[in-house]
């Protein structure tokens, strides 16, 4: 049985590091919990509850800054919740080893994407297709750094939607927010400005995680006594991380986070492959 102080401290650190890297805490929390002796299914189930908390907490601020695009969010949610349900249902019946291996691969995959994208710049969408126009995917937000209103529109919603099923699937399967995947789809496929895709992804994550949580709750995998310190720890950690983010250089945070991803990814993979759970 993991004691309260440890559970709280690990969650605090996971939320802190996650927020500084612009992600939730799940991706660090789950490997850490399994290292402390929790079995991976319980770790996934507890993590996904905390994802609802961090998503709702930060989305409440972003939505009011008027950067989040609610319509883009509502459209993409239709796909992520179905993916999340499917992913969670598979985890519930799966054995432990494949979960370690998939988790390891996903961590490595995110590392790979972050690595190849170091020098890539976002380009605005050119001409929206008819379907995207029909979905009214356009908007404007006030950019504080540029001190001007930025108008934008999306494109390729027909591809972005179904791809979001995959993002939701990873979220439900592994108990993470999968924000990195969601942001990537909105940035690179749908051509939305990075600020819009980051904040909109945050809003979607809450509903996606809720769909997965219901599956884990019904399967009896959620222990409120363990979930409470994790939720509070991750929330506090994320709050501190966001405050500090403004002061530390983006590059340093990114480098640190990439090392963490690589180490945890390798660790999960080795444990899964060797069966040393």
């Amino acid at each position, binding site marked *: *049985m993991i*004691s*309260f*102080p440890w559970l709280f401290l690990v969650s605090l650190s996971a939320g802190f590091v996650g927020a500084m890297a612009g992600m939730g805490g799940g991706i660090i929390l789950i490997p850490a919990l399994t290292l402390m002796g929790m079995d991976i299914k319980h770790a996934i189930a507890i993590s996904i*509850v905390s994802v*609802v*908390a961090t*998503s*709702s*907490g930060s*989305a*409440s*601020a972003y*939505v*009011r800054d*008027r950067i*989040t695009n*609610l*319509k883009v969010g*509502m*459209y993409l*949610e*239709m796909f992520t*919740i*179905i993916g999340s*349900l499917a992913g969670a249902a598979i985890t519930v019946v799966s054995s432990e080893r494949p979960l370690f291996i998939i988790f390891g691969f996903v961590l490595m995959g995110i590392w790979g994407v972050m690595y190849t994208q170091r020098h890539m710049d976002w380009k605005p969408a050119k001409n929206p297709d008819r379907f995207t126009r*029909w*979905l*009214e995917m356009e908007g404007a937000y006030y950019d504080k750094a540029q001190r001007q209103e930025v108008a934008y529109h999306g494109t390729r919603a027909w591809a972005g939607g179904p791809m979001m099923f995959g993002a939701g699937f990873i979220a439900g399967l592994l108990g993470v927010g999968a924000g990195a995947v969601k942001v990537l789809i909105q940035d690179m496929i749908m051509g939305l400005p990075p600020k819009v895709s980051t904040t909109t992804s945050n*809003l979607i994550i*809450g*509903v996606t*995680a*809720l*769909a997965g*949580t*219901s*599956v884990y*709750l*019904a399967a*009896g995998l*959620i*222990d*409120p*006594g*363990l*979930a*409470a*310190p994790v*939720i*509070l720890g991750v*929330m506090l950690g994320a709050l501190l991380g966001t405050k500090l983010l403004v002061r530390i250089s983006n590059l340093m945070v990114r480098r640190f986070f990439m090392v963490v991803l690589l180490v945890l990814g390798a660790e999960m993979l080795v444990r899964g492959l060797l069966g040393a759970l």
Partner: protein
Amino acid sequence: MRKNATVLEHRMESLVGLILQVGVITSASLLMVGLAWHWWVTGSLTFHYQIKDLNLFQFVVTDLHLAFTGQFRPRLFLSLGIAALLLTPYIRVLVSVFFFAFVEKNLKYTLFTAFVFAVLTYTLFMQ
């Protein structure tokens, strides 16, 4: 027309932001009360119990029933805290359905949000 739509969107954004904020603060407060009470009674913050054979809907109803009949104890606060957290995005979607249906009168997005709401409702009752 466009200006009018923007005003409506801003109202919607404020409302969604408020729902999320109230939900998260309520949840965190309930969890803290539950943990503090448990610590007061037992001297330890570590405790655990399983939710067995309940779906999300039954979980929420059981908690509310206990709360309204005054059967307060630390674990009820923890359960209520988790229930409040999980209902937050759910209520956000429900409010969005009403907004798109009656305020913005946008049929497309009413159907989209209604679909999300229907799926989430289904998961609430899932065994």
